[in-house]
């Protein structure tokens, strides 16, 4: 028997103007205790509205928010036991770090303060004011402030977007370790696919207020439900072909499928599922290189294969020039996609 989910959304809908487009439509998902879930989608897809409905800052037009199985839809934000860390951290600028951390703390004693400060590696910063901290430090104060209130669940709104690129991946690893250590459930919103994939246990892709696909990060990446998910989480090649069970005939030859299908299908084939090599004879070539992007540790080639542009990521091998006639070999598998509206 599965334990009660920490958080359940049931058919949440919200529109800002009566009769206008829905910001969020019929959204449902569950979050297990101590799980980290990423809500990802292009801007305006409704992910922040969803987060604010979970927090209690917006009320859904219909649907329910359940926290540990109990209906919290009409419970005011301050009584939900849900923490929230904002994109700009929303530290109280007129309070010291210590006052910030203790603002919502259950235990307002020195021991609790130093425990929470050391949790985020900010011992000795208690008397500083937020404007004397760096962006990364401010973020950790915001986290410590949330932890001190002992929420069951923390919501993060674009948590890393205000950090320098150099700092981001380190902060990500550090905060993920922290969250996992405290065992608090997390829902976070991002538009950065790399962030979603590396930070979350599960990823929920949203578009136009609807949930397109939810699942473990690797699964959503490897087996995207449709072309939008495939394109939004990473780069991909979309190929038309005819499937016959475990394989599919495409302009690039026969491609093994990650999921059985038959008949005419469109498949997603990731650029890293292909290798590229120089064609010895022109007769062997499937296409010509039309673009080369050198990215340091790898390269991306654009290959014109009879009118379709194919992306190929190559880690090793000879660096090929533009205009070269090349052969492509499928090393991974393609994913048949659901037809899109």
């Amino acid at each position: 028997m599965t334990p009660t989910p920490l958080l359940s959304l049931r058919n949440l809908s919200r529109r800002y103007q009566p009769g206008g487009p829905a910001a969020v439509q019929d959204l449902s998902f569950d979050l297990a205790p101590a799980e980290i879930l990423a809500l990802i989608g292009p801007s305006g897809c409704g992910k922040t509205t969803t987060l604010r409905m979970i927090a209690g800052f917006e009320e859904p037009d219909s649907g329910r928010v359940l926290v540990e199985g109990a209906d919290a839809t009409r419970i005011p934000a301050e009584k939900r036991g849900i923490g929230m860390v904002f994109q700009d951290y929303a530290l109280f600028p007129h309070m010291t770090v210590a006052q910030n951390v203790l603002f919502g703390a259950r235990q307002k004693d020195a021991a609790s303060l130093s425990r929470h400060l050391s949790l985020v590696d900010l011992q000795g910063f208690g008397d500083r004011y937020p404007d004397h901290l760096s962006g990364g430090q401010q973020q950790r104060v915001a986290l410590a402030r949330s932890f001190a209130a002992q929420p069951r669940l923390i919501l993060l709104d674009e948590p890393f977007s205000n950090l320098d690129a150099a700092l981001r991946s380190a902060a990500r690893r550090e905060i993920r370790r922290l969250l996992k250590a405290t065992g608090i459930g997390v829902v976070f919103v991002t538009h950065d696919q790399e962030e979603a994939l590396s930070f979350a246990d599960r990823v929920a892709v949203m578009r136009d207020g609807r949930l397109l696909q939810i699942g473990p990060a690797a699964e959503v990446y490897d087996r995207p439900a449709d072309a939008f998910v495939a394109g939004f989480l990473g780069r991909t090649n979309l190929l038309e072909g005819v499937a016959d069970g475990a394989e599919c005939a495409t302009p690039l030859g026969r491609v093994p499928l990650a999921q059985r299908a038959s008949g005419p299908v469109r498949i997603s084939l990731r650029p890293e599922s292909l290798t590229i090599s120089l064609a010895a004879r022109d007769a062997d070539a499937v296409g010509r290189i039309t673009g080369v992007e050198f990215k340091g540790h790898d390269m991306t080639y654009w290959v014109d294969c009879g009118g379709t542009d194919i992306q190929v990521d190559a880690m090793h091998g000879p660096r090929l020039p533009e205009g070269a006639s090349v052969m492509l070999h499928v090393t991974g598998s393609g994913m048949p996609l659901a037809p899109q509206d």
Partner: protein
Amino acid sequence: MRSRTGAGRRPRPPLLLVLPALVVAIGTCLPAAYLLLRAFDADPAQLTEIVFRQRNLYLLLNTLKLVALVLALDTLIALPMAWLLTRSDIRAKGLLSYLMALPLAVPGYVMAYALLGLSGYYGFARHWFGVSLPGMQGLWGATLALSLYTFPYLFLNLRAAFMGMDPALEETARSLGKSRLAVFRHVVLPQLWPALVASWLIVGLYVIGDFGAIALMRYEVFSYAIYTQYVGAFDRTYAAWLSLMLLALTVSALIAQRAVTRNRRLARTGTGAARRARPVPLGRWRPLAWIFVALVALASLGLPLMVLGHWMRLGLPQMDWAQLGRTALGTLMVATPAALTAVALALPVVLLVLRWPRRWTALIDRLAYLGYATPSLAFALAMVFFALQTAPFLYQSFALLIFAYVMSFMALALGPIRLALLQIGTRQEEAARALGASPARAFARVVLPRLRRPMVAGGLLVFIMVVKELPITYILAPTGYGTLALNVFARTNEGMMREAAPYALSIILFSSLFVGLILRYESRGADAPDERPTTGPDTGPSTRQA
């Protein structure tokens, strides 16, 4: 399962905010309502006679003439001055800018007093220089008195507009082959337009509503006519009608301003901060520029101070210090509660407008500004009618006096508070609520402490206006009570220049002190250091592992 078609539930604003806002709405509507009641309190024959009296047209023309002249003179002073002090390479820009803002501290009736004290047989000019200037009464005297203290409004707005302008636009226009003059006409002037119109409106409303300077200059406009009707002829129905016409003039000015500035797109389209423009070298025009600056400073500040000093010296022997002290204290005792009440009412109004944007909250906001725009003479008269008709015990009471002050000046406190609340935003309150604080506690702990500065600034603005205020005090003050302003006016009106001087000087002193304070409090905005990551080495988690 609940299901609704609306746009979410719209939480209702707390009663604690709605009640004060309603007081504001009713209070600012009262004048118009009571003027109307009183105006139609006559028989029809008399009504038509009053409304179509030839004299009304004469008063209207006089008022418009005065407004036009003051605006023209103000623009002639303020536009070149603003350009000089932002775009040229003239020195001491900061100090000069402060000097050009300072005349705000000189009330119109003090300026009129100075001009009157300068001219005439017993005047300052003849006493010191042996030149007997012609008496400066009538249209020109009024124009000069009003211009010399209202031009700072224009100057400050234009200065801000010049500084906010993207110099890249001018540079682009010049690189497209336009002369400096053409650039000014086609690029700079259109961008100054909103600031110009906005400050014309402010100054225009001042001129329409001004009473002290005009009464001392004996120039017949609406406000002066209302005053003589009320004081001399005691024809209150006609006074009510004149007040209504004055109010109508004010409202049409407000509407005209909205029409003129609508649909103008002047925001900077690019991103990034505007660079400072390279100063234009004055070259051989430099002496002329300095003469201009000196002339304006002398006329607007030096003149009143010199004239006051002159009369002060003459009057010092018979000076009644105790009386002056009592008057100053009396002024304080009324201005302080008025300022506090105004701030206490302004906060809920701003909160309602920003946090519960509805049609009715926007209306209350507008009404607060209408209360400010209502000529204070009309406001005061309406209060008299209101008190006599509904609660005679309020007539000439401190309560009614303070109420009138609050309703007409509360709008001044709205601006600083609104700006601060916008800067603070709602994020931090939400963060506090996510940490378990109730909405009231979140506001009290997170927002209120940071509103201290803007509330003080708003309160000071109201305070200074109350100290300078004349018509409301004149008409509503309890018998035996006199403010500094009232003393200046009454004495000057009777030609007692010597006796008026200390009171006028006290007002200038008071006001300039507060202008300084306001500049200090207002310039900082919300008590909020920018919480974005800015300077300092970033010691991220990776580098700070123990």
